[in-house]
């Protein structure tokens, strides 16, 4: 048990817990009582590992980015989560959760999605397992991310527009929770990030922790030392960062950097930089850091990247920020778009705009020449082509 992982009551320091209406209690409690014994069972591990290897395409490469390293005068490695099936790390979690749902005897799956990556990853595993799937997506996001809506539909998923509130990710999450309240027995809710009531943040972090487990062994064989000097990852809700940091949390000599979306600037009023702008609060079932008004109403965030467009960060990251274990910085829309183009031109990799935020933060650090810097490249840029085109500066 580490001081950075969840305690037995579901808290990370002052964050976490299960702040849910009673109607959700039986579902969440069933999950809490069973998740560890299931995911630690040999039979689960075997099936999970097999699918990660033969279906997702793991281990994903740890690639030494030669030209980018030259430019930054240090040693930059990219963890290629963008090469996962479906185009991002999200599928690590959906594979894990659907195997868990099967073992809990659930027949139906629901999920929320913002940009559509988690929705597609969920629709994919539901097709794989032959399970019925409904994905809630804000009406505004459905218009912004049409190709992903159609990908989900091709995979046989029903996409339901969230019409409440601001009609984006947080509202899609509310709608999925309402659906779960209305369908308490046969349905499992696959949350896509390290948010939600305990045990979700811990469960999702465990499924994503394969990322740092692989980085460790890949660095060991590559450079003879499993410990990099830095790990960079973008943070929306925080799932790819949770995975990239997980096995380094207790290795305090590894600097962990979480990069939030500053939008048009942290103080512009159009930002998603929660650690700079948020306060402790309760949303979607846990105590987290939350962007909100003085009255406690949740504020709508802004980022050019739909995947970082969430008004809070999950309890594990809130705690890591609070105790100073992870250094949180932010990158603006423009800085991130430029970083995306820079990676495209130097390495022939067009990154997701979420991941481009992690790359943009490299400029804020001074590295030594022999520093080993790992950037978690959480997703690929195919889904963002339209945003790149609209931005146009290339």
């Amino acid at each position, binding site marked *: 048990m580490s001081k950075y992982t969840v305690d037995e*009551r579901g808290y990370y320091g002052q964050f976490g*817990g*299960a*702040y*849910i*209406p*009673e*109607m959700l*209690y*039986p579902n969440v409690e069933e999950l809490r009582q069973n998740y560890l014994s299931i995911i630690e069972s040999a039979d689960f591990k075997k099936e999970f590992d097999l699918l990660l290897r033969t279906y997702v395409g793991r281990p994903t490469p740890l690639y030494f980015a030669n030209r980018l390293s030259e430019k930054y005068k240090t040693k930059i490695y990219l963890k290629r989560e963008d090469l996962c099936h479906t185009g991002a790390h999200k599928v690590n979690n959906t594979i894990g959760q659907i195997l868990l749902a099967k073992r809990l005897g659930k027949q139906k799956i629901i999920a929320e999605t913002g940009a559509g990556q988690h929705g597609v990853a969920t629709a994919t595993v539901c097709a794989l397992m032959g399970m019925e799937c409904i994905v809630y997506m804000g009406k505004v996001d459905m218009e912004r991310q049409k190709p992903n809506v159609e990908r989900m539909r091709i995979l046989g998923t029903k996409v339901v527009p969230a019409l*409440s*509130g601001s009609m984006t990710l*947080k*509202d899609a999450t*509310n709608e999925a*929770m*309402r659906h779960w*309240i*209305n*369908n*308490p*027995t046969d349905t499992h809710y696959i949350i896509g990030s390290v948010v939600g009531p305990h045990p979700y943040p811990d469960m999702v972090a465990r499924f994503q922790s394969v990322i740092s487990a692989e980085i460790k062994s890949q660095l060991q064989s590559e450079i003879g030392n499993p410990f990099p000097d830095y790990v960079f990852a973008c943070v929306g809700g925080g799932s790819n960062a949770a995975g990239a940091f997980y096995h380094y949390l207790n290795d305090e000599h590894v600097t962990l950097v979480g990069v939030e979306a500053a939008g048009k600037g942290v103080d512009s009023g159009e930002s998603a930089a929660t650690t700079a702008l948020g*306060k*402790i*609060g*309760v*949303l*979607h*079932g846990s105590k987290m850091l*939350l962007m*909100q008004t*003085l*009255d*406690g*109403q*949740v504020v709508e965030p802004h980022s050019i990247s739909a995947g970082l467009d969430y008004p809070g960060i999950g309890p594990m990251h809130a705690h890591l920020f609070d105790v100073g274990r992870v250094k949180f910085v932010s990158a603006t829309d423009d800085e991130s778009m430029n970083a995306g183009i820079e990676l495209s031109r130097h390495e022939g990799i067009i990154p997701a705009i979420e991941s481009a935020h992690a790359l943009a933060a490299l400029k804020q650090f001074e590295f030594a020449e022999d520093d080993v810097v790992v950037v978690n490249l959480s997703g690929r840029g195919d889904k963002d082509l339209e945003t790149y085109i609209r931005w146009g500066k290339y």
Partner: protein
Amino acid sequence: MKNRITELFSKKKDNLLNVYYTAGYPKLNDTIVIAKALEAGGADLIEIGIPFSDPVADGPTIQASNKVAIDNGMNVSLLLAQVRTIRKDVKIPIILMGYLNPVMQYGVEKFVKDASAAGVDGLILPDMPIHVYEEEFKELFHQHNLCNTFLISPTTSEERIRKIDHATHGFIYAVSSSSITGAKGEFTQGQLDYFKRLKDLKLNNPFMIGFGISNNASFKKAAAYSAGAIVGSAFITLLGEAKDLDSEIQAFVKSLKG
């Protein structure tokens, strides 16, 4: 110390009507008019909702009223000022219901103290975990003479119902179905069996049934098994359409109680 909720339940055991509405809806200061009309019409308790941007346990009707109320400028301080005004005339118990976040931002201790001083008798914070209440707030609630209501639903186990009964002071809110708030048709046999099961548990606290109560028929059915019932969405719909709040509210309450 006297509390209007415990006094009410000690005197009257059945057919109690609790009416929910969202503070600051449809207009910011309607909170006051509505409370007076409810008492005049014969409601036994008033439950005023603190609006929140993300009310996950609520259906479309109450969600929409929350949004209007927030846009109208409603917040906790303003609501407490309105309750002080309401208390100059209204004698029946007042309960505040709200999601935890706006209360947390106001400060839970300050909220409990100020609510009690304003004349509030009880709180319903549906997303507050029992252990948090027992460890951090129970003593505070008692000190300020506030009742605390927890929810139970058809999927709540008997063991947990007993635990909730133990943590509750005042009355238990029995949600009629596995659902979010909102008017629905007739109760099913399954729901009636659940009400009977609850009645037979002989809990320490009385319970009131809410969710899906919209008319005299559903009120009577729910009240047959419990201390009474709670009406929310149907009333919010009326508020949204009413031309004359006072007379229409009084007529609504009378028709509900029959």
